[in-house]
C-alpha cells in the first residue's frame, strides 16, 4: 500500500499508551532531516485520531494512517520542517 515511500526509520510504539506514541514520534522526528519518512507502529486504539491531531498541530505530513487489523496501527510521517 505504501511501497512507493522510502522509510528512513521505524519507531516501535507497540504496547505503549497515550500519550507515549505521540511523544516518542515527536522525539524521533526531531532527530530526522527534512524530507525523511518515519514509520511508526502502535497498538494504542486512540493513536489514529491522536496522530491526525498531532500532524495538524505540528505541520508534519501524515502520509499513511492505517489499521492493520491485527491490533496494530501503522503510520508514515514525513518531516516537513
Amino acid at each position, binding site marked *: 500500500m505504501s511501497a512507493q515511500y522510502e522509510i528512513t526509520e521505524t519507531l516501535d510504539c507497540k504496547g505503549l499508551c497515550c500519550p507515549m506514541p505521540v511523544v516518542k514520534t*515527536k522525539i524521533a522526528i526531531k532527530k530526522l532531516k527534512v524530507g525523511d519518512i518515519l514509520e511508526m507502529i502502535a497498538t494504542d486504539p486512540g493513536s489514529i485520531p491522536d496522530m491526525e491531531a498531532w500532524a495538524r498541530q505540528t*505541520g508534519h505530513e501524515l502520509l499513511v494512517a492505517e489499521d492493520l487489523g491485527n491490533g496494530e496501527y501503522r503510520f508514515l510521517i514525513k518531516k516537513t520542517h
Partner: protein
Amino acid sequence: MAEEKKRRLALIASRGTLDWAYPPFILGSGAASMDWEVAIFFTFYGLPLLKPKISAQVSPLGNPAMPMNMPFGPEWFQKINWPIPNLIMSNVPGFEAMATGLMKKTFKNKGVATVEELREMCLELGVRLIACQMTMDVFGFKKEDFIDGVEIGGAATFLEFAADADVNLFI
C-alpha cells in the same frame, strides 16, 4: 506552521495523589509533542511531584467513583468492582498502600507509563516545571529537594505565562 506563533498550555498542578499526578504530565508531554509551549505550576500538594522519587498514592476514601479491581486473573475476574465498605478502607492499616499497588499494577499491565517517565518526557521536550515559592516555604521544601530543571516562581510568574496561553487548566 513552524513560523506561526506557538500555541501555549498553562497548567496548575495542585493535587498529589497518583490519579491526579498523571493529567498534568500527560497533557504537558502531549502538548509539547505538538510543538506547544508548556508550563506547569506546582503548588500545594502538587509540589511532591517534583521530588526525584514520586511516592504518590491513591486513596479510595472520599473517592467514591474509584473502582477497586484486581490486576490479575481472568478478564471476568479483573472486571469485578469489589464493594469494599468505607469502614474497612478507613480502618485497615495499609489499605491505601494496597490500593495504590493494585492501581500501579493495572497501569503497568495496560502499558501506561509511570509518572516519572512522563515527567522525564516533559523535561526532554522543554516543558517548564515551576514550583510555587510560597507553598514551598509553607511545606518546608527546598530547591534541592526537587529534580534538576525545576524553576521557582510565584503567582506573577505563572500569570505572565498564562496570560498568553491558549489553554489554561487548574488540575
